[in-house]
């Protein structure tokens, strides 16, 4: 079997032939019972028939496929080595932000602002873009915990749920508005973050991941079973939609509405577009907040904890507080996104907060490149749009989705954007930052 292991050195044609022959031999052994022999129903009795030509084709395909694969791997490896050799000679230090990335960032902002105007009649596009932005915001929130502080959190959706349910309950039970509930829901989610973090942060890596996974499930199961509070599996319905500074998006009636106030013809699209701009504003605020935090002492401490916790302690940094702050702030941002989600859907139930969501948000952060803000945007686009675009492929779309994720990880193991931008520089304009 040793021949099957991908050899580290590049191989000669003779070695490749030998390797492919070994694979073909194994294919033959496996193929005789599976392909070469088959049962046929002949007059009520089963008889064994042989299919040698099919088996020959199978073995031949395996042989040729292995030969091609070997060849492709060798070529790729040679090219990679050549690239590495040339990279060593080139100076790699002190590279500033790539102007391309800055450009992409501004272009993405411009497109996202202009999008509802370009597609004002196409509700589907604006709706999908809103979903993308929710994931972008969640990704930016989780990025604080996973990307910056390096704490693997598999239960992030719990904070999203806490935010959504806080708004759902406050609005339906106490008549709170969106803007009143937003800060409180953020605070509640942050306290849940601390509640989870306090006992678990002495755990590291895999162990923390398991506990957070459990926490996410606990929250979901509580929501399913505590019927008096959460409505159980039926969820909370008729959650009020956010209004435009007190002007609701309703057909014209007695009270002034958005359409009547601005003298517009009533259209359901107004609300869709308003929701889109609302989440865009929330997401941009999140981005501003997180990228600002990253350049503050607390943000640097998050990254330092990710890099080496023991060294942090030796520098006098209270590691527990730093991790708790990362958890609380990540949870708060998740809570904000949850409030928006509840306000947009008008209906929430535990169905929306399964582990699957946590996994997708985590995938966005990891695929985007841990700690990269723009990477999160690109990864959300890929992960939300792929299943949407893949609707034509029906049951194959999740297969496509998985394949795309694997390909990204092979092509860019550090995520789409893995370059880390320093939080401050000595040499920027001659001396000071």
């Amino acid at each position, binding site marked *: 079997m040793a021949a099957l292991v991908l050899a580290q050195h590049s191989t000669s044609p003779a070695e490749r032939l030998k390797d492919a022959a070994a694979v073909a031999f194994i294919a033959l052994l496996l193929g005789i019972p599976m392909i070469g022999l088959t049962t046929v129903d002949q007059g009520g009795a089963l008889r064994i028939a042989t299919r040698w030509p099919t088996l020959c084709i199978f073995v031949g395909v395996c042989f040729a496929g292995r030969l091609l694969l070997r060849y492709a791997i060798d070529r790729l490896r040679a090219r990679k080595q050549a690239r590495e050799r040339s990279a060593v000679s080139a100076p*790699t*230090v*002190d590279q500033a932000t790539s102007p391309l990335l800055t450009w992409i960032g501004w272009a993405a902002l411009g497109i996202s602002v202009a999008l509802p105007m370009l597609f004002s009649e196409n509700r589907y596009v604006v709706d999908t873009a809103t979903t993308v932005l929710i994931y972008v915001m969640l990704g930016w929130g989780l990025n604080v915990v996973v990307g910056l502080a390096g704490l693997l959190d598999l239960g992030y959706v719990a904070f999203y749920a806490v935010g959504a349910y806080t708004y759902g309950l406050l609005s339906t039970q106490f008549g709170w508005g969106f803007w009143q509930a937003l800060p409180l829901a953020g605070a509640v989610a942050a306290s849940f973050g601390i509640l989870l973090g306090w006992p678990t942060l002495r755990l590291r890596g895999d162990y923390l991941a398991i506990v957070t996974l459990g926490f996410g499930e606990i929250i979901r199961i509580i929501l399913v079973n505590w019927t008096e509070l959460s409505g159980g599996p039926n969820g909370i319905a008729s959650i009020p939609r956010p209004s435009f500074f007190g002007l609701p998006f309703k057909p014209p009636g007695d009270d002034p509405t958005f359409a009547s106030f601005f003298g517009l013809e009533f259209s359901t699209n107004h609300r869709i577009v308003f929701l889109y701009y609302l989440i865009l504003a929330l997401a941009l605020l999140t981005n501003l*907040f997180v990228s*600002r*935090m990253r350049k*503050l*002492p*607390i943000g*640097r*401490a998050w*990254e*330092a904890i990710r*890099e*080496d916790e*023991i*060294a*942090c*302690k*030796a*520098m*006098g*940094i*209270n*590691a527990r507080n730093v991790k708790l702050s990362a958890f609380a702030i990540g949870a708060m941002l998740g809570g904000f996104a949850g409030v928006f989600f509840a306000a947009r859907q008008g209906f929430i139930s535990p169905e929306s907060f399964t582990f699957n969501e946590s996994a997708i948000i985590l995938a966005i952060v990891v695929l985007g490149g841990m700690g990269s803000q723009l990477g999160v945007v690109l990864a959300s686009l890929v992960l939300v749009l792929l299943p949407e675009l893949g609707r034509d492929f029906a049951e194959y779309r999740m297969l496509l989705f998985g394949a795309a994720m694997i390909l990204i990880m092979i092509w860019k193991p550090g995520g789409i954007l893995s370059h*880390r931008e*320093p*939080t*401050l*520089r*000595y*040499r920027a304009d001659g001396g*000071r*930052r």
Partner: protein
Amino acid sequence: MSAPPPLLSVERLTMRFGGLLAIDDLSLDVAARKITGVIGPNGAGKTTFFNCLTGFYKPTVGSVRLNHPQRGVLRLEQLASHQVARSAQVVRTFQNIRLFPQMTVLENLIVAQHNALQHASRFSLAGLLGLPGYRRAEAAAMDKAVGWLQRLGLLDKADTAAGALPYGMQRRIEIARALCVDPLLLCLDEPAAGLNPRESSELNELLKHLASVEGIAILLIEHDMSVVMNVSDHICVLNYGRKIAEGTPADIQKDPNVIKAYLGEEDADELRADEMRTDAPTDPEAVR
């Protein structure tokens, strides 16, 4: 031993891991503004001793008192590791370098000033708003970091990721980072391991400068005798967790117990003091 009270006094320190006695009844004084060397064969308990001083281990028995000029006597064995650095200003480096590898050299040094900066940023509120008080604190932190980088000849690497630099430089960065915490007592765990002769003689100069000019007391674990014998004012020798000798470098080089511990019983007669130097470069612990 001079007249003024010692900066740090370790009394009857014992550290037991199950059946293993890693440190056995160790008492030691560390004078302010002086360099105290701690030497001993591999496994003598030197790093365990550091871990006990800096709050990473809780000693089984014994006390570690620090005479802090402003805060009075602090019992280090009762403090958590981050408090040892923060309140007692006892800062350590690690035998196997522990930098923040993906962060730049400058960022490493700024992170070391976290507590002062965090205080100035008023739990990030003033920092988020970019208030002048925080900006000043950040500029001061930057100045301090740049000052040490300049002193240690690392300024041209300030914006490079720390993990991408060669080993000797990483050692110096770790020392620079520790210095940014404003230590009263700097505990260096094998700072010369893996350095070439030129680098280790630069290290000698630096350590002497830190003690005599900057007034930082240094506790030094080192296998490289050319460093220890050259810079130490006082040396303590450990073997199997027990202190077997203490005194000036000249005393230590002549001490029969030390010679026995390093070279074994039979070879002891043949040893002359300078032969101890051959111990260092091939030491297996040095590559850890």
